[in-house]
């Protein structure tokens, strides 16, 4: 009975700690997966994972810790063909700004939506989109982004600069096209 209570207690403590950041986790999941269904599954498995590892959490920023797990779960379990298409982590060095990673369907879709910033963000290569989301929507520091994305700070800095440059280019291009 004591043990039972202990487990309940543990679950309650975890929820108190993690549930306030569910929106942030979900937002990142949406921008990573770019669809609601996968984002639902991703956040749920990430939260279960976080729960299992909660004992190992040694304090610090809970939100950054959860975002790390969301991102990690995305890359390790939901890495299917769709996820890989937008991921540039492995060929970034070869393709300067990753200009060719834009998916024609996404560009076509963006012309219809009229939601320019969202469309342009969706077009960005995965590694650029995630740093922008973490910076602009979660307001994480470079150091936190480096921890979440498991990359050096210098890489975070250059990715952010390149992401912004590319986003500006997409927006400019989109406006010229009359989106």
């Amino acid at each position, binding site marked *: 009975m004591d043990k039972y209570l202990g487990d309940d207690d543990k*679950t309650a403590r975890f929820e108190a700690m993690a549930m306030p950041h569910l929106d942030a*986790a979900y*937002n990142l999941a949406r921008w990573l997966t770019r669809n609601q269904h996968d984002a639902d599954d991703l*956040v749920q498995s990430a939260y279960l994972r976080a729960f299992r590892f909660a004992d190992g959490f040694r304090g610090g920023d809970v939100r950054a810790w959860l975002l790390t797990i969301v991102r990690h779960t995305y890359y*390790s379990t939901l890495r299917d063909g769709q996820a890989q298409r937008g991921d540039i982590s492995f060929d970034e060095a070869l393709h300067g700004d990753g200009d060719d990673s834009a998916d024609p369907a996404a560009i076509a879709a963006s012309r219809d939506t009229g939601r320019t910033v969202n469309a342009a963000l969706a077009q960005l290569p995965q590694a650029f989109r995630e740093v922008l989301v973490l910076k602009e929507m979660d307001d994480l520091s470079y150091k936190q982004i480096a921890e979440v994305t498991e990359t050096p700070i210098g890489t975070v800095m250059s990715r952010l*600069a390149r992401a912004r440059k590319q986003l500006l280019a997409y927006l400019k291009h989109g406006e010229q096209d009359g989106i």
Partner: protein
Amino acid sequence: MESKHSQEKLSAYLDAELDAADRARVEAHLSGCGECTAALAQLEALRGRVAAEAQRHAAPEYLKHRIHAALRAEPAGTPAPRTPPRTSSRTWPWAWINLGLAGAMTAAFAVTLTLYLGQPSADDRLEQELVSSHFRSLMPDHLADVASTDQHTVKPWFAGKLDYSPPVYDLAAQGYALIGGRLDYLQQRPVAALAYRHRLHIVNLYIWPDASGHASTPQAGMRQGFHLLRWTQDGMRYSAVSDINPQDLAQFAALLRQKVAQADAQ
């Protein structure tokens, strides 16, 4: 400010992520650079647009319930897997692999550069050949195939042995006595070699046709204690090698160039 560099610095400046020194540098630069000021304004505007327009997806209500239920369905006291999530074997350590590849490429480049720089240049090889040939000619009975102090004997001797006629001048009156001629082999072709004596020293003069068609003034070189002078004149390349002092060798070259120029003028 260099462009890639400035892009990153401006972006980091916008995020207030620069240290004091870098921030001061960027600010100092911004005060005098309209282009970067405009670029920074563009980045600020972009941040504003993203903040205002980019969609922040809120977790749907049903997801909260699903997670709540799933957490309670977790088997009590599930032992945590021994490996933390970061070390999943499915995630390749790309940062390290990239670093390794970059290191390997740098090393390969360094090796190539060393080999390239270590490789003797065409001039180097020629000088080496000239000195070797000169040295060989000093061995007994190697100096001349046709031993004659008469330029009118030496010059015709080359006919039929070479596909060109080397100019042969005796400079005995000026202290450089012609002592003979021989065939030699330089730069993958047979060449005329003339031997001169200056006091107790031997000067070897190599003459072969020049493909480039550019005349050049004598260039001095030194190798293994021998002095070299090389020049191109009237479509012929001349190389003089000797152990005499460089001033004498230069005098020898000047006399010879004068003779060739005179012959040309006639």
